């Protein structure tokens, strides 16, 4: 049972899904931290180093690390030309999360863009499914 769960967990597609989820969460945390520490008057603010004063940024770093390690596990087995387009599901989840959690607005054109990303993912899905058969 444990080995079956472990085999499922280390599956590169599962790792890719976890990677996308944590990348989305990380961006939300980083935005919260960046806003909390913003000092636009400082010339050094472009470096973003002031963000390290915020706990949100550290949570963002932690979730980014989880996303990075799961990404490494995924691309160890999957070609980058397939894994990377699929990982772009973050471009659907991030704007939706910004809208839902941060109250940022999504204009009609942005909804159309989100739909196009989704269409692109559907186009990429068959080659990915063919690869799954070979794995």
């Amino acid at each position, binding site marked *: 049972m444990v080995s079956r769960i472990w085999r499922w967990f280390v599956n590169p597609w599962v790792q890719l899904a976890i990677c996308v989820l944590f990348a989305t969460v990380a*961006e*939300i945390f*980083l*935005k919260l*931290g*960046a*806003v909390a*520490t*913003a000092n*636009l008057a400082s010339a050094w*603010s*472009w*470096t*973003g*180093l002031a*963000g390290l004063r915020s706990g949100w*940024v550290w949570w963002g770093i932690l979730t*980014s690390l989880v996303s*990075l390690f799961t*990404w*490494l596990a995924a*691309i*160890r*087995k999957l*070609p*980058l*030309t*397939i894994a*990377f*387009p699929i990982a*772009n599901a973050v*471009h659907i989840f*991030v*704007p939706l999360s*910004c*809208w839902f959690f*941060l109250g*940022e607005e*999504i*204009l009609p*054109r*942005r909804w*159309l*863009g*989100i*739909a*196009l*990303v*989704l*269409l*692109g*993912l559907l*186009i*990429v899905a*068959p*080659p990915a499914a063919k690869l799954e058969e070979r794995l």
Partner: protein
Amino acid sequence: MTFFAALLILLTVSCFVAGQILLKHAMDITARETHSRRHPAPIFAAAIVAFAINFFVNIGLLQRFDLSYFFPFQGLSVIMIAFAGAWILKEKLSLRLTIGSIVIALGVILVSLS
């Protein structure tokens, strides 16, 4: 958006693409069964440097723009990675994958123009 901000966005995207290609190259070395003379550690290190630049400039940009506005510019990397993967990593890039990547990138650009 100022010219300087556009330049910084280009810098983050380029660093991101370079980091991904380096990471994949390093993971390919670790995945090989046969003993390789090449060690993946320096390639990992170079990837981490590229990602670190991407990360901090990213925070600087976040302090000025809405996340949902500027984040999609990273999506330009879809096309760059598709071609870099085929050219540098010698991965197979089918017509379907190319079209899929372009549609995703177009969607991302459309989101960024909103």
